[in-house]
């Protein structure tokens, strides 16, 4: 074999696995707890996107719309051992009851233990394992090894009733890194987050040696296609290990099964919470979740109306990056630079395009392919300095006020719910829209407000402190609305929700857990929250008022007891007689007393009077 060829092979092999290893933290696999969540997340995002796309297609074709239905299962599978010789890792072994799997130098083999013994043979290595009443021991080529217990493995299974995938496309979608990337599209979608389901497949392969099992049925097929897919890491090519047919519970849809190493946690950074939050912002989806405890939890849809389909828009010069602009120029089929600017960008008129091209000293008729990078850069700079119209903002797909309120009500069973949707705005040429909601009381526990963050309908669970959503949330002075505040966070049984929908969410980093603080974004969030709490404080003040009212009405009953006691002594009459007279008086005067208490409340109720002054000078002064 040609030496260069040999080298090239290695280079490629290095590039895929090394790419993964080097970028673990960016891809969401930096620890085993997060890895488990990331794999679930990738699959769920894909499923939701696919289901919605299907629904929108059905709407267009005036067909009956099938609403998203997604099942997520997380099942603990095997014990996981590191086989160690001294200090070097030799191999890895997974044990599930009697099933033993050994991974050695990128190869894996599975066998059943018989009579407390099992052995494996790889090229030069012969492993044998014994189980002596639950005590495991390992030998390699006759010498004793140590077994170190690792994080266990989990089976994750995600099933949807989406359109299904053509059998010919299954291998590429699940078995080729960076396939079918959506990142060029200027369109709101969960996909912008995703580094792809294939990285989950690769992670499974690297940690348990198991391939991905995919089931997919398209409407016209009788049964679902089953494929076991893995990535050939040397060639970055999909490999189909097994192919067949299986039954599928839906007319169409996809299911993926992965076995991966992971650590399951409950709580605010675990899968349970992720599923719960996902359900809140996907009101048209029904999600079933079966966690390690094998209990099935259902998050039922609250609307049969799919969210509006987001439309793709052309890039607006304000937010255009030079690299993408160069690519647009290179790939364009337009004849001249001017027509590229007019037809492939947003809000650039012919006269603006011509003025701009002339201003940097280029011929308006120059072919787009002939523009070099430096020229492209000066054109872009010139365009960005022009006073262009803002991009159209009807391309976004918000969750919807009514839907948010319904979901919050269903999830938290609160006493009060309110959601607010701001009008779309633009940061750096990118349309975005803020939605907020708050739930108060009822079954909500806790003394401090909780904040749920979302970007393009995806829950953000990590990096809370560096996120613009958190910072804006903490930037509102809640005490102005009569709320008690501790460390900037309002106290009480409260859940706040902030969602940013955008064709391009500005994440602070590749890990996509936090939104960057653009002033206009921060401002929009604050305005939305202010409106929200203004409304809520009216409710709280009313509630407080009726509480005070009851308390004060009762005041007379209570002091009446003492009055009867003292007065009876003072006039030498039986206490009970006096008490009856006082009770009669209270009954007779009930209406009058209520009116009086009501009047005193209107002057002393702190929150309500505070509210009035707040309404007088609204917060829009901050603009």
């Amino acid at each position, binding site marked *: 074999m040609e030496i260069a060829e040999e080298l090239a092979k290695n280079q490629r092999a290095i590039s895929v696995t090394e790419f993964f290893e080097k970028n673990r933290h960016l891809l969401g696999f930096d620890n085993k707890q997060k890895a488990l969540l990331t794999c679930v997340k990738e699959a769920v995002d894909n499923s939701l996107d696919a289901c919605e796309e299907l629904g929108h297609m059905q709407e267009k074709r005036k067909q009956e719309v099938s609403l998203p239905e997604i099942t997520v299962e997380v099942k603990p599978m095997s014990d996981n051992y590191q086989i160690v010789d001294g200090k070097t890792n030799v191999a890895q072994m997974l044990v599930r009851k009697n099933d033993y799997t050994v991974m050695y130098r990128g190869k894996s083999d599975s066998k059943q233990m018989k009579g407390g013994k099992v052995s494996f043979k790889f090229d030069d290595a012969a492993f044998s394992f014994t189980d002596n009443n639950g005590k495991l021991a390992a030998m390699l080529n006759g010498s004793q090894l140590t077994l170190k217990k690792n994080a266990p493995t989990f089976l994750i299974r995600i099933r949807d009733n989406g359109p299904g995938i053509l059998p010919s496309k299954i291998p590429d979608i699940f078995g080729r890194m960076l396939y079918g990337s959506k990142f060029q599209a200027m369109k709101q979608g969960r996909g912008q987050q995703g580094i792809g389901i294939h990285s989950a497949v690769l992670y499974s392969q690297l940690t348990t040696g198991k391939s991905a099992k995919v089931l997919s049925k398209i409407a016209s097929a009788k049964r679902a296609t089953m494929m076991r897919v893995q990535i050939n890491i040397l060639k970055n090519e999909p490999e189909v290990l097994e192919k067949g047919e299986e039954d599928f519970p839906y007319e169409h849809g996809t299911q993926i099964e992965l076995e991966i190493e992971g650590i399951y946690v409950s709580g605010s950074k675990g899968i349970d919470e992720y599923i719960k939050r996902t359900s809140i912002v996907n009101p048209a989806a029904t999600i079933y979740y079966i966690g390690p405890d094998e209990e099935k939890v259902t998050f039922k849809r609250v609307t049969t109306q799919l969210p509006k389909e987001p439309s793709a828009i052309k890039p607006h010069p304000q937010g255009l990056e030079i690299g993408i602009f160069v690519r647009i120029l290179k790939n364009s089929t337009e004849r001249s630079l001017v027509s590229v600017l007019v037809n492939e960008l947003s809000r650039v008129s012919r006269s603006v395009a011509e003025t701009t091209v002339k201003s940097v000293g280029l011929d308006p008729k120059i072919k787009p392919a002939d523009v070099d990078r430096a020229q492209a850069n000066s054109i872009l700079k010139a365009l960005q300095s022009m006073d262009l119209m803002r991009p159209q903002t009807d391309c976004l797909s918000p969750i919807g006020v009514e839907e948010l309120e319904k979901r919050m009500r269903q999830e938290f069973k609160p006493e009060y719910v309110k959601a607010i949707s701001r009008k779309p705005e633009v940061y750096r040429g990118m349309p975005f829209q803020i939605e907020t909601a708050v739930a108060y009381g009822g079954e909500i526990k806790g003394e401090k407000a909780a904040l749920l963050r979302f970007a393009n309908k995806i829950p953000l669970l990590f990096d809370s402190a560096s996120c613009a959503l958190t910072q804006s949330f903490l930037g509102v002075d809640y005490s102005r609305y009569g709320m008690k505040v501790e460390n900037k966070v309002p106290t009480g049984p409260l859940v706040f929700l902030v969602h940013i929908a955008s064709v391009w969410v500005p994440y602070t980093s590749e890990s996509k857990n936090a939104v960057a603080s653009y002033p206009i974004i921060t401002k929009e969030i604050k305005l939305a929250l202010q409106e929200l709490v203004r409304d809520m404080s009216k409710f709280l003040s009313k509630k407080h008022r009726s509480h005070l009212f009851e308390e004060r009405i009762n005041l007379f009953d209570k*002091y009446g*007891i003492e009055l009867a006691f003292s*007065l009876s002594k003072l006039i030498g009459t039986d206490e009970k007689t006096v008490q009856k007279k006082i009770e009669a008086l209270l009954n007779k005067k009930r209406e009058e007393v209520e009116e009086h208490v009501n009047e*005193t409340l209107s002057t002393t109720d702190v929150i309500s009077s505070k509210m009035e002054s707040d309404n007088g000078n609204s917060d829009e002064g901050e603009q």
Partner: protein
Amino acid sequence: MAEKQKGKNSIEIISGLGKNLYAQISSGENPYFDLPTRGLANVKYSEEKRILTMGSGLSRRYFLNVGHVRKFVQTVAMAALSKELIESGKHTSLRSAFYQIRRTIPGTKIDVVDDQSETNKAIEDLELITDLTREQLHINANKAGAVAGNVIVEDRGDVIDWSKMGSGGWAIPSNVEDLSFKKIDAKFVIYMEKQTIWDRMNEDKAWKKLNCIIIASQGQATRGIRRLLQRLSREHNLPVYILTDGDIWGVYIYSTIKFGSITLASASDKLALPEAKFMGLTMDDIEKYDLKRHLIKFKDVDVSRLNQIKNYEWFKKSKRWMEELGKMEKLGAKVELDAFTAKGLSFMTEHYLPEKLREKDFLD
């Protein structure tokens, strides 16, 4: 006999209040009682009598009123306690009255009173409503202060010689109505706001040397002391001289003894002593006795109190007092009586007082 009769009247007045309330309740009326409004707004200075009197302002206190209900009930509770005391011929102190009324209303989390200031107020209210003094209600202020002098009195059968009371002197009871004077050998009375100065003068036997009675309180003069001063003045023609720190608070102690107090303006007839004269410590004394080293700078509270008192009608009528207050304001500092001890422990007895008396250097 007279005592008994008075007691009966008090009981009638007090239970009359209760009967009135009960009648209102029975007829389905929101029960109420009227009492003179307290505070500067309802106080008048009578130029003729030279004392403060209560104005005609009345406030009506209702049971069925969020802002009144607590005080209303406290006042009735106090009336019931007072009635029991009078009936049984016993007396109780302000402190003890508080403890007797302090209880939780059954089945609630409300205590009838939380703090002694509430019972103190309730007693004052009861006095205003019934026009009876707290002594007539059988509630005594704590005994306070000290007196010494060549005087023999009889108090409920006990004979007391004020010249033989040792270093502590005789403590003045809150009720001095029943005190009878057996012998008085004194030409005048000096009242001082400070116990420390009284101790000094008692040790110096100043009352013997100057042939006078010395009386001290601790801060504001109690009602017992004020009534005693009034009786000594009215019944035995003894001039009363007042000695306080050289500050605005001392001026108000003088004002209370002389004209009556704002909160108890209704009792001025029985307590105020318009004949009382201010002996010191005056602003001129600071200059004359070279006390400048002992000045204490005014704080904000001193300044604001000075401004209040400057605007009291009864001070405004006195040119000399306005001059004195002007000097005090200009100085912007105060000086305590104790400053004299720096000139020698007995400087006050041996120099200051004799000179004052000789020169008749009093403010009126």
